[in-house]
Each structure stands twice: as C-alpha cells, then as structure tokens.
C-alpha cells in the first residue's frame, strides 16, 4: 500500500531542494566563468592579431558635456596613433551649456581632425545622437574603423593601438576595451564600482573571450570595422535602452567575432551616489530585459554561426539577470526545508553557502591580482565586497562552531535550542532582506543621516545586494510597464589618468 504521507513529504522536500538549487546556479555559473580565466593564457586572440593602424573615425555623443569634452578631445589627439588616421566627430545633442563653444574651439585647434556636428532636436537618447554622427561618417569611404565612446572617458595613450591590432583578423567585427573607474575623488561607492568593473571586465570578459561569446561591448569603448557597421545596418539600434548589447549580439549573430582587449585601458567617471548609480543601472537592467526578450530564439540553441546559443553563455546571461529571483526562491526553499527537516536543511545550507564562500574568495582573489593598483587602493571594498552580514552568513556555514558557540561564548551567551532556531531562520532569510537594506540605503541618502548611514548600509548588505535590488526594481518597473526613457548619468570631469 502506498504511504501517501511519505510520498507527499518526499515530493515537498524535493521541491524545496529545487528552490534552494536556484540559488546555487548563479554561484556555480560564476565559478565556471572564473575558472575559465586562466585558459585565456592560451586561448586568446593575440595569435591572430597583428600590427594594424586603420583610419579611425571616433564618434563622441555629447549633451551638456562642457566640463569634460575639451579634455577628452585633447586626450584623443594625444593618442599614440597616426594623427592623419584619426578623426573625431563630436555630436552635440542640442546642448544648452558651453559644449558647442568648447567643441568649436577644439575644431579650430585641430583643423581637419575634429568636427562639430550639431543636433538641434536633442534628448532622444545616446543611440540617436550616435546615428547622427555615423550617418555623416559613412557619407564617404575615409573611415575604416569606427570607435564609439562617451564624452567623459579618457583613453590611455596606447589603448586605441591595442584595440586596432585585433581588427587585422578579418573575422573580427568589433573590439572592446577595459573601462576602469578613474575618478580623482574616489569615495566608497566609486571604489566598489572599481572592483565590480575588474570582476566584470578584465576577469569576466576574458572568460567570455575563452567561451567565444561576448555579452556586451563597453558603451564607452567599442571599435567596429566599417564592414561590421554596415552589416548591422549602418546604425545603432534605437528601440531599446541596451543599444550596446544589441550591437554586440548583432555583430556575433552575423558570424563576426567580438574581442575584449584587457590591456586597452579607458578611464571613466562613475556615480558617487547610490541614487545616481540606481538610475544608471536601472536603465541597463531594463535594457537587458528587452534584449532577453528580443533574442528569445537564440538562448540555449547552439549555432554554427555564433556562440551566443551555447549552454555556458546562456547560464551566465540568465544567472545575472535572474539573480535576485534566485536569491528569494533559494531562501524560501531553505526556510521550508528548515521547517520540514532541520538537519537536512542545515546540510543543504552548508553546501550552498560554503560553495558561495569558496566562489567569492576565488573570484575576489583573482580580481585583486588583475588590477593590483586599483585593488590596493580599494582593499576595504575588496574585503567587504560581499557585505559584512553576508560574510557572517558565509562564516556561519564555513566555521559553524565559531559563530554558534565560540563567538556567543565570548560574551557569556549560550544559545538555547529556540535561540539557535531563531538565529538560523534569520540567517536563512537574510539574503532577500539584504536587498531591502540596499533599497533603504538609497532612500536615506538624501536625508541628514544619509552621508553616514548609506555607506554603513552598503558595507553591511554588500555591493552585490545593491545591484540585485536595482535589478529587482527593474522587474517591478517592467511589470508595471513603466516608461523606459533615456536618462543620462551626470558627469563632472573627475577622471584622472
């Protein structure tokens, strides 16, 4: 006779285990990607690269960039690149500050090299501004490669040369560089962003070079061949907030390679306030929603033309996009298992969080070595990147005796069964609440206590939880069909080299 009670129990336990496993997928995907990095020592594009200095047209979208555009143009003119093979087209998107005056002064200073293009109707978004410049550039056949950049970024002198060498391979359609956080007046947030950029670029994009598919060309540093630009329609997509990602996908879908060059370094100014970062990343996250929907027919469908449909790329893409959901479902699963079978829940918790601790340690140890100077300047942010409270959860999983016996013992506390249960519940459900903490950090930022409380909250909940909270906000905005509009991040010219 079938014991329906036991069957129901097993089914429920398996279902809860499945929920917990959703939290393990992003962790394992991150570990897989970072384990691919050392293979870049052998599987890279340098073997097919060669000295190559094509005629490069640089298109710079500028809207009220008076504070930064002059310096940016001077830096471009000082690039270690043949000046006769370099032209800068600054597209002034109906600026209302002194941007046109600054560009015109530079146009006079660099005749035949700097061009001022004015849009009288502005504010439609970066893609529209870029397209205005690209239309002019494509009117003749001078341009052999097109560099798309932001007005505030500063290229290190050798960076363009290091990018163009990959275009010597006719299979390459586009090359991206390492956008490095370069604010002179760094604060806790720009230091966190600096670490995030090491993780996501010289680390993760090297892995994507190895896996053969790039998720996104950096908006501030993407170099296209003329052939590639024409193949993708001769313009940048204007239907989404993720035009960089769409350009990257379209390039690869046509069978051309996208290469990340980690040694071409470009400095950029990043937001110093959580509210500004939230605005920027919400735009990115909502753009990713549209990309995921637009390319729904390529996911997990391997193709001979490109590697966007491989299992590894799909897992990496969806792990990042669905991470906040995975955090919530994983915590629900853990809590359910705790109520159903506390010993089994404890074992599952340990496996999940020890894996997370090992992955975090490995990835941060790799990242810190990939950009030692920036990591040394931001050593606190490297150490506390996961968040102090998340680290406590990891330590609880890794060294249970330490947090459950030794630490309380120092204060003369001995946890009872009930106390231990409550502490366990708190630890299991902490992750979704860490996103609430990040949201709170943004809410209090503009209040009198914000300058003190916001950094404290971010250190406690972790920078990753902040990004997850923003992604979660993008889900809500999408479900509400909130207007998706171009919202420029304010730049003040704080970049240094």
């Amino acid at each position: 006779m079938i014991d329906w009670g036991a069957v129901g129990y097993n089914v429920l336990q398996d279902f809860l285990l499945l929920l917990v496993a959703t939290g393990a997928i992003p962790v394992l995907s991150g570990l897989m990607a970072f384990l691919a990095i050392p293979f870049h020592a052998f599987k890279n594009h340098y073997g097919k690269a060669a000295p190559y200095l094509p005629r490069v047209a640089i298109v710079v979208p500028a809207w009220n960039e008076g504070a930064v555009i002059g310096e940016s143009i001077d830096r471009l003119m000082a690039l270690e690149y043949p000046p006769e093979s370099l032209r800068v087209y600054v597209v002034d998107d109906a600026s209302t500050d002194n941007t046109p005056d600054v560009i015109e002064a530079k146009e006079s200073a660099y005749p035949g090299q700097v061009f001022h293009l004015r849009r009288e109707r502005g504010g439609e978004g970066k893609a529209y501004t870029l397209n205005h410049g690209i239309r002019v550039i494509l009117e003749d056949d001078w341009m052999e490669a097109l560099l798309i950049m932001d007005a505030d970024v500063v290229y290190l002198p050798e960076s363009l040369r290091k990018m163009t060498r990959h275009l010597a391979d006719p299979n390459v359609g586009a090359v991206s560089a390492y956008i490095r956080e370069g604010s002179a007046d760094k604060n806790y947030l720009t230091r966190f962003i600096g670490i995030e950029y090491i993780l996501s670029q010289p680390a993760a994009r090297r892995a994507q070079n190895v896996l053969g598919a790039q998720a996104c060309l950096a908006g501030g540093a993407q170099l296209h061949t003329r052939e590639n630009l024409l193949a993708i329609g001769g313009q940048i997509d204007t239907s989404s907030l993720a035009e960089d990602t769409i350009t990257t996908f379209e390039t690869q879908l046509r069978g051309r390679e996208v290469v990340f060059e980690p040694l071409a370094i470009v400095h950029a100014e990043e937001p110093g306030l959580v509210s500004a970062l939230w605005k920027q990343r919400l735009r990115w996250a909502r753009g990713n929603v549209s990309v995921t929907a637009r390319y729904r027919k390529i996911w997990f469908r391997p193709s001979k033309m490109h590697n966007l449909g491989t299992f590894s790329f799909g897992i990496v893409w969806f792990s990042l996009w669905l991470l906040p959901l995975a955090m919530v479902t994983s915590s629900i699963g853990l809590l359910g298992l705790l109520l159903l079978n506390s010993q089994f829940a404890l074992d599952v918790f340990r496996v999940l969080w020890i894996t997370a601790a090992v992955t975090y340690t490995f990835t941060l140890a790799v990242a810190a070595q990939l950009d030692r100077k920036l990591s040394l300047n931001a050593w606190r942010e490297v150490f506390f990147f996961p968040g102090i409270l998340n680290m406590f959860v990891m330590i609880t999983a890794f060294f249970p005796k330490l947090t459950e016996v030794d630490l309380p013992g120092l204060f003369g506390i001995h946890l009872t069964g009930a106390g231990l249960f409550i502490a366990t519940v708190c630890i299991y459900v902490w992750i979704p609440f860490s996103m609430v903490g990040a949201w709170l950090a943004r809410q209090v930022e503009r209040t009198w206590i914000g300058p003190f409380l916001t950094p404290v909250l971010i250190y406690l909940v972790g920078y990753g939880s902040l990004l997850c909270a923003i992604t979660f906000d993008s889900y809500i905005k999408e479900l509400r069909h909130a207007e998706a509009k171009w919202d420029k991040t304010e730049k003040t010219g704080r970049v240094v080299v």
Partner: protein
Amino acid sequence: MKHTSSPQLRHQDDGGNRASRNAEILLIDPQHPDLAYIQRELDRDRRRERLLIPVAVVAVLVVGVLVLIRQLFFV
C-alpha cells in the same frame, strides 16, 4: 568630398589579412609607432597573459588555506 589616406598609410587592397596592407607604414614621429614596435608590444602582451596561470594558482591557494583552517580547527 572623398577623403584619402596619407601616403604613409596608403595600402594595397590585397583582399587578404588586413595586416599585410600596412606594410608601407613608416615611423615618422612618436605618434607613428612602427610595425616592429607594435609587433614587439603584441608579443609582450601575449606573453603577459601567461601570468593568468599563477594568478589562478594563488587564488586556489587562498581558498585552500580557508578549507585547511576549517578542517583543522572547526570540524
């Protein structure tokens, strides 16, 4: 107006690898790095990528130390 490249950068369209098109580039000033220099830089950068292996080994060692501490003192 059609633009043409400078004499130093003018190349033959041989239809093959684009690198071969640059055979005429001459070093005329610091903003004109010569092909040999760029090739040396490329070779150096390629060799530099091999450092990723010790980087990964160090990261594995850091994880190993954590696991060792757990096994020795907390299990």
